[in-house]
């Protein structure tokens, strides 16, 4: 039997948030601290239910008054050697901004699920990637999941990567709000015996302990501050390999694989390569299948790790492309392009890959990205291939009637 057939027998239909909460439970965290916020609430509701039901005897759930406090509580918990978890979204994540830097700077391997949601104003509770992308430079590893199974499985991978002694960086597992968090679909819930084999207990390098006093996150003057940042950058470099290792080891034990830093779909001979992150990947694959059956050479590069950015892997995957298309559910206002577009262009500059990169801002504030939108984008990319680039980056499906 192939791995997939084995999986089918084990599958149950649950909500995406439940699948993630179940994974968190199986990873045996010692402290969870979170504040409810739509559309993340179901994860922490499920977790507090598990705890109330006595299913997580070694875990404390901290009720706090804000997201700022939620993450701050985990700073202390992680420093004393606890495996720690939180989840948030949108405004909650933005409120954590200051603490995010403290966590990464103190090298605390906290794992947090981000249910991606648009940010205010205007208020909007639906999905896009502006919340997590806006935290790009906080020193957290950022992984983006394509479906609920990947988001659930990524939880175990995230702990493994974060807690590696050569990494010690916090990880955000990003999954699309509603599209993944609230969808009910068949998934394999993580098995305790396999996770115990995959993920050893957290063995901290340093422990905050009154019997052996240590200062965490000490003051650093201009004479030493730079070197702390350098060490974080070095750890991100190490994480590039550890993210691949974690995915491969997971495949070995569980028989499921979604790519390491990136995943390639029909890229080998592709003239047009579409790059994207998150749940939109499935839609793009469908369009590519249809186009391939007509003989069109279209491929997909799924970016799974946005931080660390997989520069080498991206260059390798794109080396024969004639046109590169980036789809971004976020925008840097004032540059008129999303982060994936900017970073892709940056990683190709100073190389001999001179294929045009065209960027599309899609799906802001939860707007659907139907198949015909991807079809139109591919048609425009084909035009760029034949007659050259005219517009570098643009809004997609803009409703001119509203403006």
């Amino acid at each position, binding site marked *: 039997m192939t791995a997939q057939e084995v999986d089918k027998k084990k599958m149950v239909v649950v909500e995406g948030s439940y699948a993630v909460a179940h994974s968190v439970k199986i990873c045996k965290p010692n402290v969870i601290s979170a504040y409810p916020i739509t559309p993340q609430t179901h994860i922490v509701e499920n977790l507090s239910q598990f705890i109330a039901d006595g299913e997580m005897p070694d875990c404390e759930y901290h009720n706090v008054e804000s997201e700022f406090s939620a993450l701050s509580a985990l700073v202390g918990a992680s420093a004393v050697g606890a495996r720690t978890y939180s989840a948030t979204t949108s405004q909650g994540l933005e409120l954590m901004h200051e603490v995010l830097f403290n966590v990464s700077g103190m090298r605390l391997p906290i794992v947090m699920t981000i249910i991606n949601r648009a940010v205010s104003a205007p208020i909007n509770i639906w999905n896009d990637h502006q919340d997590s992308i806006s935290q790009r430079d906080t020193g957290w590893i950022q992984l983006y999941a394509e479906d609920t199974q990947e988001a659930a499985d990524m939880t175990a991978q995230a702990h493994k990567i974060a807690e590696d002694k050569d990494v010690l960086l916090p990880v955000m597992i990003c999954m699309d709000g509603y599209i993944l968090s609230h969808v009910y679909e068949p998934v394999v819930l993580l098995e305790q015996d396999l996770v115990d084999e995959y993920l050893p207990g957290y063995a901290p390098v340093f422990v905050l302990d009154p019997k052996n*006093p240590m200062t965490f996150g*000490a003051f650093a003057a201009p004479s030493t501050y730079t070197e702390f940042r350098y*060490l974080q950058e070095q750890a991100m470099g190490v994480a590039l390999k550890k993210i691949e290792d974690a995915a491969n080891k997971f495949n070995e034990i569980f028989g499921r694989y979604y790519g390491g830093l990136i995943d390639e779909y029909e890229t080998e001979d592709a003239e047009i390569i579409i790059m994207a992150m998150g749940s939109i990947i499935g839609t793009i694959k469908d369009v590519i299948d249809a186009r391939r059956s007509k003989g069109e050479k279209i491929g997909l590069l799924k970016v799974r790790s946005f931080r660390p950015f997989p520069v080498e892997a991206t260059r390798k995957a794109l080396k024969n492309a004639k046109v590169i298309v980036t789809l971004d559910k976020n925008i840097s206002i004032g540059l008129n392009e999303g982060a994936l577009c900017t970073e892709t262009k940056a990683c190709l500059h100073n190389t001999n890959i001179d294929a045009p990169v065209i960027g599309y801002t899609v799906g802001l504030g939860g707007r659907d990205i139907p198949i015909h939108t991807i079809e139109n984008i591919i048609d425009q990319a084909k035009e760029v291939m034949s007659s050259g680039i005219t517009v570098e980056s643009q809004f997609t499906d803009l409703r001119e009637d509203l403006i």
Partner: protein
Amino acid sequence: MKIAPGGVCKPGTTRVNKTGGWRTYRPVYDYDKCIKCKLCELLCPESSVLPKDDGFYEFDYDFCKGCGICANECPKQAIEMVLEEK
């Protein structure tokens, strides 16, 4: 000195990590005016006024940041703040 990831260190590293370099003005005693009233020692926010055996005081320039509180509060104007020049 070596740094550890996360800025983790044992207590007391400020003994190695000298911070007197932040100072722009350096306090200097005029012992002829000093009446050993102890105000400078009590008011120094950085514990950088150290008593000497003869009852007078001296500054610990490794950690004095030059805030000037001592000079401002001295009832006898026995402390002068002198510009640090290289």
